[in-house]
Every structure is written in structure tokens, then in C-alpha cells.
């Protein structure tokens, strides 16, 4: 061979290996699965928010030609095992635990609650069957907001709880809260609301469950962020051994936190398949997705801030109430993360944090991209409000309060070391990329013409994975496993529990492994989505860059060492003299000695080396996150607000971010832009709205508005030089940051635009109508 050169894929925008299939219609999403004898399910859903179910008459539906079966809630209860929400159980939830069934039995708890499932020969016929199911309801007073839910007189959604408290009230203090507030020059109170909005992936939930009566085995084709979590949920609720359940997943049309594990409907479909001995498919329609799949946020924050006259944010005292909707989900657990993250990158010396979560007659609270993001929204919002009170510039107040990078590092008052955090650098870079003085001139000129431009800045850090704690015995995010194998055709196969749904893992993990092992990128195959072959894992929490990227790197290194060991016997050379590059093993300095890695694998499999040598070219690698580190960055938006119509246009959006070493810049930038688009949507368009009776008012995409290509500007991204903390793995997660920090960035810009009216903003959702209300109600004297 002419030359052996180690190509470097890591850090380059390698084209995605996922794309040829998705660009030609050859992707395989759950709704593309078609099995012999497959039936179709549709759900009868409650039209009211809170009611007793008096009777369910399915007799007419059962006689409809094409309908194979109808299961009521009571019948399904007989077919399944009671238990808590599987994900909350896995995460060790110990708070109030509602008892509920997969389909409603005695009562319905939100508009859209499933009451019965119709299984038919086609989806059309299943929906026809649903029309024939008669349910008699006795309506109960709906609990549609947190303040009513906190009232001990509100009717409890779950009888076994006796009230509507989903998380018992708690208060924690970090630092000396009372002294900090007593000594402060100023104490200011804020009440800030974050509205209910939701993931809205392009593909909703769905599954095909296929029970084999002969073997007693269940196969579920799922759309999930973790095939193993889905498997555990199915096994738990169907009372099956985990060895009897296999979950497979192919391409997944987005999720953003929605599709973790198996939902009540998916579990009901699995139970129906077992009862019928036939495969059953259910794919939710958009109406079901918007009204029943789950929604996020809806949190209120009463905040007291202790501030010095110079603009030092000394302490915060926060009371939050989370409206978790009806059935158990992420909402009861999220205050712990909000609390831990509340200080952000700032040198806040004291934090009081009180939290409560309540159940209401609305869709369940699910994880949504940066589930704890309200801490950033509230903190970055009040920094601007404080800056206004003190006449400080938004950049100035942030630079003043950012913890300096010291050795040893500053520690968040809630405990985590701020090691390697580059918030100051990102703010300073924003100030260079955006000419603030020039903008202020332009803003003044525009105002003179009756046009309202505004600029907003916000900054965030994310524990993706977070720093290794100085005294910690384990890494920042638990362990991540991967199995790696060298095949006889020279392909390096990675088996990962990550379940990509847009994150490009089949590209990025291959980049890392190809470099570390020494094969061309095309010679690495990433296997996902089969509980029979992949280790436990979950795509979420922005963990895959560090955790899975890291285990791919270390695993490839371990596999390479084994291959070199075998090759050293084959080639009668010392292992220390061997290298692998471009898929060839060779003696350093002697390219003519090269043999392909596939040849090494074939020879290893031949058994020629006997027992003295480990010739199994497979490793089970585990990575604990190494030194970890923070992801973060600062964003800046320039907006124009039309004070006549309330319409906001985002004119420019600039980002200086640090997600450590980049694996694939195009993938990283795609994650950031997508998150920012969702954040812009959350502020300007998206709201999961309910009326006072608990009817969901945003059941179509004409009511739940998401951004289009005309709403999102070009987003300018600059990657900062990072602070490496680990000897090998300095990739950090970037999936959630855009969504975490875009809402305060945009709201801060809108408030700046409306400052001539004296508008102060204490909420996140700013529809045109709301902007006009704010302008009308504002006090220009402020």
C-alpha cells in the first residue's frame, strides 16, 4: 500500500450516514411496520376533564364488521398488573404515588383520558368502532389550575392520595439565607410564570405489539428514547419476565423528552396483542398527540432577590409550584434539578428553595428538552429586571455576577464546582460579535420613527454531563456501556443503548470509534434499537456526547489493544511496534507489513492461537464520564416588536457557546439551532391552552402554533475554545442548551424593545395579543 494515514473524523462535519435512507423514503419509522395479521387500535377518550365513569357500553362497537375486540378499562385492568409509573419507579421516586389504571375505570382525569380501546382490521374501522362506544359520565368539578389544586377542598384526582399534592412541600436552604437578605441593600419580589407548552415531535407516539402465543414472548416495535426502559415498563405492567419481552426501534421522528418508556396507551396495546394473539398497531394522530401525549412546564415562581446597590445578586429565595397535570410523570421530580441548577454560573451566596407539585385535570407533565429550564428563565429574567432598577446594562450585570474561574474552582451554593465554566468568555464574545453601541444608536433612530427594536442577552450552563465531584466515588452521570466487536469483514460494530431520534449517533459515534480504532468511517457500524443486543441506555439529558462518545472512545481503544495483541502473534512482532490505521495493522515504519483488520479477525476466529491468547475480538466497555464538565453559552437576540399588532420579528440571533470538543460541528449546530427554534416558538407561538372547564384548546396545529421557516432567522453560532478537563473525553452535551436559554434571550429582547412603554415582563408566553395587553397596561413612568 502506498501510504497509511490516520484520518481524523472527529471534529469534522462528516456527512450523516443516516441521510441516504431518510432522503429516499427508506427510513423505517414505527408506522411503517406491517406484520402478517396485524390489527389496528384506536382509543375512546373522555370528552370531559374530570368525571366519574358510570357505564361503558361497547356492545354496538363489538358487533361492527371489522372490529375484532373492544377492551374497556375494567377489562384491561384484569389483563394487566397494577403499578407505579415505570420511569418514576426506575428513578427512585418516593413521594406521593397515585394509583391508576392503563385505561380509566372509575373516573377520567383529563379531557382525552383513554376509556376503552377498539381493535379492528384497519385504523378506519377502529375509529368507526370508537364512535359506537357509549360512555356515561357524571361530571366532577375540574381542577384546572395549581391554586385550586393546593386548596384542601379541591376534589382529589386520585382517591388514594386524598388531595392533589403530587410532591410534598419542602424547603431547603443553602448558605445563610436570612443573613444575606438582612444585610442586602435591596430586596425585590417577583412573580414569574412559565406556561404550558409541549414537545410536538413530527412523529407522535406509537407502537406495534406482537405477542407470540406459542413461545409466550412479546415483541414491541416502539418509538422510544430507550428500548430498555420500554421493555421494563411492558414487563412490569403485563406481568411478564423481562426475558420474554423484546423491544425494537428503528428510525424515530423526534421526541424531545416525550417518548421515554412506554405510555399507558402503548401498554394497553401490548396487553391487547397478548389477549388476541395477534400483532396490534397504534399510532396516535396529531389530535391525540397535542391533547394527551403530555405537556411540559407550567410552573410558577415567587422569587425574592437580595441585591446590592452596585448590582451584586447576593441571594435568592424561591417558591415554586409545578402543575404536573393528571397522571404521574416528570413534574413531581423536576424541582430537584431546578433547585440544584438555580444559581447557574453566578456567585450567588445564598439560596432558599421551596417547592410543591400538584395534580390537575390536564395532560400529564412530561420531560421536554431541558426539563429544569425554568431556573434559567427566571434567573436571566430577574437579572434584567434588577439591571433596569439599577440602571445597569444587561451585559454589565451578568459580567459583574459571574463566578470567576479560579483554582480550585468556585462552587455553586447548591454544591457543584463550576470547573471550566466559560460564561464570562461567552458574554465577552457576544459583546464583540454584536456591536451594542451601534445597536443602541439604531434603536434610538427606529424609536424616533415609531419602530421598537430590542436586544436581549441570556446565558446558561448545563450539567452535560456536569463536573466530577471532588469527593465523588462515581462520575457525574452514572455509567454508560457499549459492546464493540470486530467482525471478520473488518467492520467495527458498536452496540449502544442510545436510541437516536435525530441526534445522528450513527454518524458521530462512528467518527469517534473510527479515529480511535484506526478504520475508515465507513467501516464502523452503529447498532441501536434492539433489547436483545444493545446494553441498557437512554438518549436524554444531553448525555450522549460525553457518556456515549466517551465509551466509544475507550471501547475502541480496548478493542484495538486486543486486535493488536492477536496481530502481534500473527505478524511475529511486538505489540508495541504495531499500529492500526485505515483498517490495516502494520509494523510501525514498515507499510509493506500491513494486513487488514478483517484478516486478523478471521485468523482469530479460526482458533489457531489456542487457549493461551484471548482471541475474542469483542469488548464490553464502561465509561463513568471521566472528569466531565459543563456545557454552556450566551445567546443574544435582536427583535422588532410591532406595537400596533403585537407581532414580534426576530431579526438576528447570535450565539457564543462551549460544548467542549466538537465531534461533528454540523450536528452540534443543528442541535443548537433546533433548540433555539423551539425556544423562540415557546415564547412567540406555542401554548398548550385549556379553558376553565379543562378542555384542551390547542388540539390542532392551527391552534398549537409552531415556528415555520419564516419565523426563525439565520442563527449565528461561534464555538468558544473550551477548557479541557479530561485526558481523552471533552465532548459535552448540546441537545438541550438552545431550548434552555432561548426563551429568556427572546423575552429580554422584547422587554428591551418595549422599554419606552415601561413594560415589565414576568411571563414567558408573549403572543401578539399579550404584547398588546402589556403595552396597554404599562406605566410609561417606569
Amino acid at each position, binding site marked *: 500500500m502506498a501510504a497509511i494515514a490516520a484520518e481524523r473524523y472527529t471534529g469534522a462535519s462528516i456527512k450523516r450516514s443516516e441521510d*441516504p435512507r431518510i432522503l*429516499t423514503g427508506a427510513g423505517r*419509522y414505527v408506522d411503517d411496520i406491517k406484520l402478517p395479521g396485524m390489527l389496528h387500535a384506536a382509543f375512546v377518550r373522555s370528552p370531559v376533564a374530570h368525571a366519574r365513569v358510570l357505564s361503558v357500553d361497547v356492545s354496538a362497537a363489538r358487533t361492527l364488521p371489522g372490529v375484532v375486540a373492544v377492551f374497556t378499562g375494567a377489562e384491561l385492568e384484569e389483563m394487566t398488573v397494577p403499578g407505579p409509573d415505570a420511569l418514576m419507579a426506575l428513578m427512585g421516586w418516593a413521594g406521593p404515588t397515585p394509583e391508576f389504571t392503563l385505561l380509566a375505570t372509575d373516573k377520567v382525569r383529563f379531557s382525552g383520558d383513554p376509556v376503552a380501546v377498539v381493535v379492528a382490521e384497519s385504523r*378506519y374501522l377502529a375509529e368507526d368502532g370508537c364512535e359506537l362506544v357509549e360512555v356515561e359520565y357524571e361530571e366532577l368539578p375540574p381542577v384546572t389550575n395549581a391554586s385550586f389544586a393546593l386548596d384542601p377542598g379541591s376534589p382529589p384526582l386520585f382517591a388514594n392520595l386524598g388531595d392533589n399534592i403530587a410532591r410534598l412541600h419542602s424547603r431547603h436552604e443553602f448558605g445563610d439565607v436570612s443573613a444575606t437578605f438582612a444585610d442586602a441593600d435591596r430586596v425585590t419580589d417577583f412573580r414569574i410564570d412559565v406556561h404550558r407548552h409541549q414537545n410536538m415531535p*413530527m412523529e407522535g407516539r406509537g407502537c406495534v405489539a406482537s405477542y407470540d402465543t406459542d413461545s409466550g414472548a412479546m415483541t414491541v416495535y416502539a418509538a422510544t428514547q430507550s428500548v430498555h426502559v420500554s421493555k421494563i415498563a411492558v414487563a412490569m405492567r403485563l406481568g411478564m419476565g423481562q426475558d420474554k419481552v423484546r423491544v425494537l426501534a428503528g428510525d424515530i*421522528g423526534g421526541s424531545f423528552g416525550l417518548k421515554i418508556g412506554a405510555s399507558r396507551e402503548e401498554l394497553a396495546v401490548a396487553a391487547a396483542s397478548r389477549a388476541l394473539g395477534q400483532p396490534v398497531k397504534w399510532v396516535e394522530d396529531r389530535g391525540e398527540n397535542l391533547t394527551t401525549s403530555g405537556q411540559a412546564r407550567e410552573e410558577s415562581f415567587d422569587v425574592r432577590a437580595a441585591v446590592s446597590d452596585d448590582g451584586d445578586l447576593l441571594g435568592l429565595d424561591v417558591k415554586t409550584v409545578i402543575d404536573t397535570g393528571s397522571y404521574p410523570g416528570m413534574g413531581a421530580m423536576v424541582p430537584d434539578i431546578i433547585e440544584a441548577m438555580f444559581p447557574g454560573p453566578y456567585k450567588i451566596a445564598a439560596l432558599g428553595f421551596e417547592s410543591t407539585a400538584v395534580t390537575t385535570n390536564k395532560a400529564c407533565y412530561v420531560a421536554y428538552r431541558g426539563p429544569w429550564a425554568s431556573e434559567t428563565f427566571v434567573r436571566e429574567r430577574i437579572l434584567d429586571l434588577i439591571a433596569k432598577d439599577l440602571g445597569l446594562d444587561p451585559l454589565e450585570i451578568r459580567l459583574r455576577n459571574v463566578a470567576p474561574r479560579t483554582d480550585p474552582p468556585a462552587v455553586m451554593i447548591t454544591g457543584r464546582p463550576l470547573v471550566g465554566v466559560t460564561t464570562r468568555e461567552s458574554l465577552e464574545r457576544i459583546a464583540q460579535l454584536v456591536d451594542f453601541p451601534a445597536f443602541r444608536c439604531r434603536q434610538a433612530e427606529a424609536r424616533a420613527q415609531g419602530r421598537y427594536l430590542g436586544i436581549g442577552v441570556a446565558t446558561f450552563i448545563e450539567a452535560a454531563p456536569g463536573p466530577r465531584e471532588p469527593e465523588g466515588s462515581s462520575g457525574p452521570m452514572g455509567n454508560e456501556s457499549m459492546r464493540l466487536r470486530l467482525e471478520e469483514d473488518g467492520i467495527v460494530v458498536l452496540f449502544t443503548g442510545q436510541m437516536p431520534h*435525530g441526534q445522528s449517533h450513527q454518524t458521530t459515534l462512528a467518527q469517534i470509534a473510527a479515529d480511535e480504532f484506526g478504520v475508515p468511517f465507513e467501516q464502523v457500524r452503529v447498532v441501536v434499537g434492539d433489547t436483545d443486543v444493545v446494553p441498557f441506555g437512554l438518549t436524554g439529558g444531553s448525555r450522549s456526547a460525553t457518556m456515549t462518545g466517551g465509551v466509544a472512545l475507550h471501547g475502541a481503544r480496548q478493542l484495538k489493544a486486543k486486535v493488536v495483541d492477536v496481530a502481534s502473534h500473527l505478524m511475529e512482532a511486538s505489540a508495541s511496534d504495531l499500529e492500526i490505521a485505515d483498517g490495516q495493522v502494520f509494523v510501525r515504519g514498515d507499510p509493506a507489513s500491513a494486513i487488514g483488520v478483517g484478516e486478523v479477525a478471521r485468523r482469530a476466529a479460526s482458533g489457531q492461537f489456542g487457549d493461551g491468547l484471548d482471541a475474542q475480538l469483542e469488548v464490553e466497555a464502561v465509561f463513568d464520564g471521566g472528569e466531565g464538565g459543563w456545557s454552556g453559552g450566551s445567546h443574544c437576540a435582536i427583535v422588532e416588536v410591532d406595537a400596533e399588532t403585537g407581532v414580534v420579528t426576530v431579526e438576528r440571533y447570535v450565539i457564543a457557546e462551549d460544548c467542549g470538543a466538537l465531534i461533528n460541528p454540523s450536528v452540534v449546530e443543528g442541535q443548537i439551532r*433546533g433548540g433555539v427554534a423551539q425556544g423562540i416558538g415557546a415564547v412567540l407561538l406555542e401554548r398548550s391552552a385549556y379553558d376553565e372547564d379543562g378542555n384542551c384548546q390547542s388540539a390542532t396545529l392551527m391552534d398549537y402554533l409552531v415556528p415555520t421557516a419564516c419565523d426563525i432567522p439565520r442563527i449565528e453560532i461561534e464555538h468558544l475554545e473550551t477548557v479541557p478537563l479530561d485526558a481523552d473525553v471533552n465532548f459535552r452535551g448540546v441537545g438541550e442548551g438552545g431550548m434552555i436559554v432561548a426563551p429568556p434571550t427572546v423575552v429580554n429582547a422584547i422587554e428591551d424593545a418595549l422599554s419606552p412603554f415601561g413594560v415589565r415582563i414576568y411571563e414567558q408566553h408573549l403572543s401578539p395579543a399579550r404584547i398588546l395587553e402589556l403595552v396597554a397596561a404599562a406605566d410609561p413612568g417606569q
Partner: protein
Amino acid sequence: MVDITLSVNGVPREGSPEARKTLADFLRDDLDLTGTHLGCEHGVCGACTVIVDGRAVRSCLMLAVQAAGSEVTTIEGLAPDGGLGPLQQAMWDSHSFQCGFCTPGMVMQAAAFLSGHPDADESQIREALSGNICRCTGYQSIIDGVLLAAKRNRER
């Protein structure tokens, strides 16, 4: 059931869908062309866009029987041999997509638009694609892909 014949991706096809069956369901269920995706089934998201007699159409809002006698092109038929056509190649080169669910509709919408507007600029492309929702990308990479395809087409 209604007997229909139509041309799909240049191949004569026949079928007997129920009168109420949408073109999208007919393509996916009866013809096994699952590249066409259903994102909302009420004509807003554009994921199900196919080309019918030269025009981009939402196949969730059209009945299969309405397509009788028509020429339908789906994502599977955009490139002749199942490979990548110039637009698809430009979108691959531009890292246009992430989860891929909006992709078929977005590509078909862009293909139909570019064929009539080969010199379109960015704002025209954004407008033309504004009826196709992508939840992953923030659109910039998709717009870049369409711009690249248009540029390459002009230079050819």
C-alpha cells in the same frame, strides 16, 4: 371500494380503496410506499406532500379516488434508481435534516417549487417551505440545502 388506476413514480398501479381512504393511506398501506409520512392528517404540517400531476399536494387531504388517472410522484420516485437526485444530494451535503420525519414532504415541496422557480432566493424559498413544519433543525440547514441545489442547477 372503488377501482382506480393511476401512475405512481412512473409505474401504472391499480387498487380498490374505500372511497374515504386518503391518498396518503393508499400510498402507504395499499402500495407499501411508506416514504410518505403523516404528521398531522389535517393539512398543516406538510410531511405527506407528494407531487400529483406536477403540483405539490398534501396527500392527507386528498382521497385516493381523486388521484385516479393522475401521475403521482413520491419520495421513493424522486431519483430514478433509488439513489439521490441533485436536490437530495445537496440536502445531504448541507446536513439538512435530523430525525427525518418531515424530510419526504419537505423534499417533495422543495422539488416542486424549484422546478418552477429555479432562480428563487432565500426569502422565496423560506416562503415556499413555510407550510412544511420541521421540529428539529430550525430550518436553516434545509434552506441551505435548497439554495445549494438551485445553485448547482444553475451552474450545470
